[in-house]
């Protein structure tokens, strides 16, 4: 090695060790905090899963198809949703599907609840958004397995850490799209609001949010898709759902099981995507 490289590598910056120290500090001092979050989330999510599993699958399928019709006003879509879900029931993957559905919907709801307000704040605070951007990039590009480890240490195994890694991965989408939606509200509309004496709050609720709604809804769809793509990874840290059979199939080189579970995920993805496209297809 040349002397310059030797000099540079002679002292390794102990980033890894710092990180570990930091997480050790968190676990020793705030274990009660993270544990209570994990416990709370587990109770709510598992309870929801159990509740939905009490309902006969056919009824639940009908209810979801009904929701599809209500949101998109399309008989074709409702029928396709029903057929897709019945296929999953037929493949004997219903319980896993319900677990995944709860995880995805819960994570998407949490991501939106966190992402939309942050997006609104960032849209009104360009400086803040400049600092936020690298964090969002980090959340989306850092390989999931890397933060799987500390999340596992802090929250333990199960559905709660699954939800948390999913939110970390999916929340940047609603943040970015809310920011985009609000910053691209046409200036004449904003000025119309100002010229007629709108307060900041009125401007937000009566002009900016309605104008940005289609973009925010696109953020919702994207967010749901990102959540679904985390299902298999969440299974690695013990979250139940369709990821479990995939992981099991991988470990035992079980082609039939892998194919069945994989197809079920695809069907679920298509259904969620079509249902959640609110305000794009049906709006007139």
């Amino acid at each position, binding site marked *: 090695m040349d002397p310059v490289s030797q000099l540079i590598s002679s002292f390794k910056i102990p980033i890894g060790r710092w990180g570990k120290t930091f997480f050790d500090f968190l676990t020793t001092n705030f274990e009660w905090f993270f544990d209570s979050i994990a416990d709370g989330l587990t109770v709510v999510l598992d309870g929801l899963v159990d509740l939905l599993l009490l309902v006969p699958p056919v009824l639940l399928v009908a209810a979801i198809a009904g929701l599809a019709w209500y949101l998109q006003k399309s008989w074709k879509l409702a029928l396709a949703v029903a057929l897709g879900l019945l296929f999953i029931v037929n493949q004997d993957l219903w319980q896993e599907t319900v677990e995944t559905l709860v995880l995805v919907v819960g994570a998407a709801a949490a991501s939106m609840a966190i992402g939309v307000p942050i997006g609104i704040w960032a849209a009104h605070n360009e400086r803040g958004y400049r600092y936020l951007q690298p964090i969002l990039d980090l959340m989306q590009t850092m390989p999931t397995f890397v933060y799987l480890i500390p999340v596992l240490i802090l929250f333990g195994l199960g559905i709660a850490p699954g939800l948390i890694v999913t939110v970390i991965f999916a929340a940047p989408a609603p943040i970015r799209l809310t920011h985009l939606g609000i910053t691209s509200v046409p200036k*004449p*509309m904003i*000025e*119309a*609001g*100002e*010229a*007629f*004496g*709108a*307060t900041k709050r*009125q401007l937000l609720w*009566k*002009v900016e949010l*309605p*104008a940005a*709604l289609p973009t925010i809804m696109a953020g919702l769809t994207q967010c749901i898709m990102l959540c679904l793509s985390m299902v298999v990874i969440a299974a690695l840290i013990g979250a139940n759902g369709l990821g479990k059979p995939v992981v099991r199939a991988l470990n035992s080189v079980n082609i039939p099981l892998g194919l069945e579970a994989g197809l079920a995920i695809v069907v679920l993805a298509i259904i969620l995507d079509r249902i959640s496209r609110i305000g794009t297809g049906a709006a007139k």
Partner: protein
Amino acid sequence: MSAAVDFKNVDIVFGAARKEALALVDRGATRQEILEKTGAVLGCAGANLTVNEGEISVLMGLSGSGKSTLLRAVNLLNVPARGNVMVKDGDRMIDVAACDAATLRHIRQTRVAMVFQQFGLLPWRTVAENVGFGLELSGVPEAERKARVERQLKLVGLDQWASKYAHELSGGMQQRVGLARAFATEAPILLMDEPFSALDPLIRTKLQDELLQLQAELKKTIIFVSHDLEEALKIGSHITIMEGGRIVQTGAPEDIVLRPANDYVRDFIANVNPLSVLTAWNVMRDRRDLDHGEDGWVWLDRRKTTRFKIDEHGLVAAAERDGKPAFWVSCADVEAQPEETTQVFWANPGTSLKTVMLAMHRSQTAPVALFDDRSRFVGAIGVRDVLSAVLRR
């Protein structure tokens, strides 16, 4: 007449280097120089303009002349760097450039309404909801809001369209919605930022006529930005011409056409048809400048073809044309008169130049007399006066 809006030494600068830019403004630098030296864009400089209640004051200029910039200072969409923008609120004049947020909101909600070039309608709201937007912001209760919205929609002829969305309407109709929205707040001051520029010419003319009709009824104070001189001359009671952020001339429409302050204004009016602006009053020769003969006879023209005998009350006692007695008739009936050489037409100061020319044509180029509203002789117009007015020589 009292002022509704009063601009006092208003400077508006866009960009970071305000102080440096203002220092250059004080030295009379042009917008180009300021941009090169400081990177700041001069919106307008040293603007002084009083807009009286009930008048339509038109701000004119090429694009980038600062006319919209100045207009938007009235409701503080543009913030002046220096100077005062006084807006009438009841009996007080409020400086919007210096007032607090609550006062500004009060002014915007109840005193000053605005109509935008691109309409600025909210596409997710129906026509009625758009018209009620301003009322909603100021917290007008729903029942009253509905009644007021309905009234405004009737006024602009859109009551059938109340539950449609803006994009289902044509451009002209959308701007009517914009007008109704502005009228709905019952603000006495109306800002119109090139409201008809985005419309096709036929619709534009129609909306101009409608605006004038509504104005005759509502008597608002209107500040109107336009780059179209024909439009300005048609609707403006006062016209202010701006160039490079500065006001070059303010005056009544015919002042601008007859006495342009500089070459910029002259270029501006070069293509204006003077017949659409000028009146008999603008082109006449005063009776004191006419050739007086003996016994109270006055020659109406330089060629001495026609003369009037004026009595001690200023009324016409006798007329003579080409040495023969003649009678005098009003221009108002010019279409009905036969072509005779024994008649002389008379006009009022407000009669349009076009009518005067028609009268001359009918009477074989006889001069046209001017009477005031008590039929007193005040002056005369000869062919040469008309020609020099039309040719601006």
